[in-house]
Structure formats: C-alpha cells, structure tokens
C-alpha cells in the first residue's frame, strides 16, 4: 500500500521541489505538495502527511490544519473515481436531490461514502459554474451536464454497488 509509506518517492520529491523553486519558503507549497502526493497515492494518509511535512520543514499538525481545510484534499481513502455532485442553488432547483437519491439506489452510497468495490466515492461540491446546464456533476475530471435519471443509469451502468 504505497499510500502508507512514510517517505516520499523520488518522483514526488522532484515535483514538489519544482514548486518550491517558485516561492520564498518551503511551506508555501503545502497545498501543491498535498495535491501532488494525492495524485500519486489517491489520498493523503497520516504517513504521507508526515513525510510531506518533513520535506517542507513544517510540523505535521500545521500541515494537517491546511489539509483538512480544503475539501479536495482527501485525508481518508476515496474510490478510484470521485463523483462531485453539485448541490448548489441552480442544481437544487433542477432536482439534484433526485440525482443524489438515484445514485444512492444505483451505487449504494450516500454523500461521503465509497462503493464496496472501491470504484466510486460520492461527495458534494460547491456550485460547479455550469448552472445553465443544471443539474450537473463531475466524475473524475469530466463534467456531465443536464444529468437526468437515464444519464445516471448509463453513467454507472456497469456498477452494481453494494446495494
């Protein structure tokens, strides 16, 4: 389990050091470093956090205060793909609660939960800036617009979930 290794890989160090080159002090890249390690390991474990903190010459507690502030830094394991469900106002008007319900039925997960097969994690997200195409959600890096029941069925057709 690479995410539990308490040292950074050479690749991670190279990427983090490239960021450090642009800033006046090492801890200024704290958020970038968290994102870099998360990109390699899927999430930021306690072990990863301590390794990053050592590399940035800062305390693990201070770094954890930063890590837990940002909703796109994951301090718990997530599935292979994260579903970001917009539940802000325009998507709410257009029925995002129905989408959440249907995702629950199809994948067997609620907000903050991961499917038993570890394929998907469902999280709420701030307004995704596509309100003219509401309701919307993202799966990984991909935005899906005007999502309805049929679109959800197709999107997760091969995922039975654990329901």
């Amino acid at each position, binding site marked *: 389990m690479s995410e539990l290794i308490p040292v950074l890989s050479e690749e991670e160090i190279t990427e983090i050091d490239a960021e450090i080159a642009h800033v006046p002090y090492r801890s200024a890249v704290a958020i970038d470093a968290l994102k870099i390690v998360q990109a390699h390991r899927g999430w930021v474990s306690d072990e990863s956090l301590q390794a990053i903190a050592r590399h940035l010459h800062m305390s693990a507690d201070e770094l954890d205060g930063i890590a837990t502030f940002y909703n796109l830094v994951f301090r718990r394991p997530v599935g292979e793909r994260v579903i970001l469900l917009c539940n802000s106002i325009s998507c709410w008007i257009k029925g995002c609660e129905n989408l959440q319900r249907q995702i629950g039925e199809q994948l067997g997960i609620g907000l903050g939960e991961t499917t038993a097969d570890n394929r998907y994690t469902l999280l709420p997200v701030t*307004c995704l800036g596509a309100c003219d195409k509401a309701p919307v959600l993202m799966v990984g890096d991909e935005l899906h617009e005007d999502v309805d029941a049929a679109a959800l069925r197709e999107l997760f057709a091969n995922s039975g979930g654990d329901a």
Partner: protein
Amino acid sequence: MSLDLPLTRNVRPDRSPTDFAAYEANGGYRGLRAVVGRLAPAECLQVIKDSNLRGRGGAGFPTGMKWSFVPMGDAAGPGHKYLICNADEMEPGTFKDRLLLECDPHQLIEGMICAAYTIQADVAYIFIRAEYHKATQLLRAAVASCYEKGYLGKNILGSGYCLDMQVHSSAGRYICGEETALISSLEGKRANPRAKPPFPQVSGLWGRPTIVNNVETLCNIHHILERGADWFKALGLTEDAGTKLYGVSGRVKNPGCWELPIGTPVRQIIEECAGGMEDGYTLRGFLPGGGSTDFLTPEHLDLAMDYGTIGKAGSRMGTGTMIILDDKTCPVGFVKNLMEFFARESCGFCTPCRDGLPWSAQVLDDIEAGRGRPEDMDTLARQVEFIGAIGNTHCALAPGAMEPLQSAMKYFREDFERHISGGACPFCNGGAH
C-alpha cells in the same frame, strides 16, 4: 447594426477553444503590442480610470482606483509585485468566467499582461479552482505559447519589461474567492481572509504589493487600452461602462450566459435571451447576481442591470448571473439551500459566521421540515441584523449569506408563515421537483 461585444467575439457556438493562431488571426495581442513598451504605465492607469471599468467579480469596485494604490517605482521597495487573476468562480448560480476561460484563454492572458504592465508587476498568477480542469489545461498551454512567442518572460517584445505567469490549481473552498483569503491560499495556508488595512495593493502576497482581479475584469483591459476609455464608456446603456456577461439559470426555457451592453433591462435578459419561463412556471423572484445578493421581484423586471440601479432597488448586481425563483419552488427551501452552502463554506475564523450561519441553517431547516415555531421568524430577523451588519464579521461571506434570507423574509414572508402554521412545506418534496 450589430452590437460591439469585445469579450465574446472569439466564443464559438460549439464553445470549442480559440487557440493561439486563431486568436492572433482575429486581432489578438494587438492590444499587447500597442501597450507594452509603447505607453507609459501611468498613461495606461489613466485610461483605465477614465474608462469607469468596475470589478466584475461581484463587488463592482472601480478597477482604476484599485490599481492606483499600488506603489510605483522606488516607492514599491525591493522585491516582486504581483498580479493575480481570481478564476475561482464558485458563487452559487455563477457561470460566466468558465465561458471566458474555456472559450478564449488568450484573451485573459493578453488582458493580464496589460494589467501587470500597468501596475509594473513582474509575477502573475491565475488562481483557478481545481474543478475547472479543461480551462486549467487550456490556460497552461496558452501561457506556454506566450513564452514561446516572447509575450511572456524576459524583455517582452524588446520593451525591457519582464513578466512571469503561472497557473495555480486550487484545492477547493468557496472562501478562496475572497481576495485576501485567496492570497492566504496562494501562500500555502488555510484560506482565512485577512484584516484590512493593510490592503493587498500595499501588502499582499508574501507581504508585497498585489492586485487581485476577476477574470471578466481582466479580459477587458487590453480592449480598453487599445480602443480607448470613450469607446468603452459608450458601450454601456446607462451610467456604467462596457459590456457585461449576464446569465440566467432556473426554470427558464433557455438558460445561458450572454455578453450584452451593461445596463440592459432585466426583462430583456430573462424574456428574450433566456426565452422566458418554462411552460407552467411563473416568475416569483430572482437573485440578480449570484447566491449572496438580495431577491428582487417581478416589479423590478424593467430595471437596468447595472451597479447603481440594482443597488438602489435594494440588491446588488453581483456577478450578473441571475437565479430565478419560480412559483413551484419553495422560497424557504431555496434560502435554506443557500444558507447550508454558506454555513459549509465558512472558513471558521470568526464566531458570527462559524456559529451563526449553521444556526440560521438549522432554523430554516426546522421551518422547511414543518417544525418551525412563530418565534423562529424573530430569531431569523435577529440573525439578519447581527450577522448581516458589515463590521460584525471578519469578511463579507456571512453578510452576503444574509442577503437572500432578509429579502426572502420581506417578499415571501407569507410562505415562511404558511410553513409554520401548517406544520409542513406547502410545496412538498422539500420544494424542488
């Protein structure tokens, strides 16, 4: 006569991005060539001041005045000066900057180079939310093209002016859109807003002079510098200058985002651009410019969408992207959704926001769920009074959260009271259908 719409002239119907070659072929980087090394920074600043451009991020502060507080020359002291583009679009119901970022990334970069030149910044950042993945990739490619062409880097176009530009992908949280919170985040910290003064113009990123401007604001800069303040002022229909990206979302036939002369009447935007209400739905109210603006009602449809007019009507033009409340959507559920958003997105630094917003959300949840008591209306009114007052909180997030609530209590009070007296939401299904 077709309208002069500078910001969206490269936006294609299929929204495919305009690349470097297409951008230059359509007159792109002409403004840059006319400005960098040709005009003195002080001349540029004067043009922006004269143009009456106001910030398009929501607050509407005059851009030229904002820039005028940046120390110039020796007064700046040794070290960098920074220009930051706020591309952290997250205001509920706002989807205008995405259009500019995804369809015409070079326009933003040209605007930023001209803005940075005006304040003599030598480092520029584009602070963009992580979810704008496509825009981030396009911007990074566009920045790389500009370095290759000599529009960024050392000695731009032989002028002696140097500018480095970086695209910074963020890690979430609405509060990063507040300019001092954005600076904290760019420094690698929790995105807590900072006390002002000192203002970022004097002491911003890493303690150095810094300007933070919205995407749409910056996209205007080279057009104004190339074509002049009078041209820009003449674009507006009212006392405000330029064009504006307006949007409409909710139960309208054709939700979307359009560039129009600033001061276009609300009715024209909703009825002509957005095609009016969906069949079977009636307009009851609208938030003129995102989730932290006050409701207006059908009686306000003939108002001009500009800063002054919407302000006098008791709201704010904000981001210019309207959210429509229809007659089948519950106003209490609507405001509850917004309050839960703002409570979730509070940075937690100051008590009225950290503890007050969840309290308001709880009261609204009680009312929506049919557990409301008559005295809850007094509780909400007190919250509006105390949390909504500028100065009681560390930044504008919590007062902004109170704007839709206070105006909903004014215009839709009977809906609140029906929830309480009837012990249930009269709109069923929590208000959304």
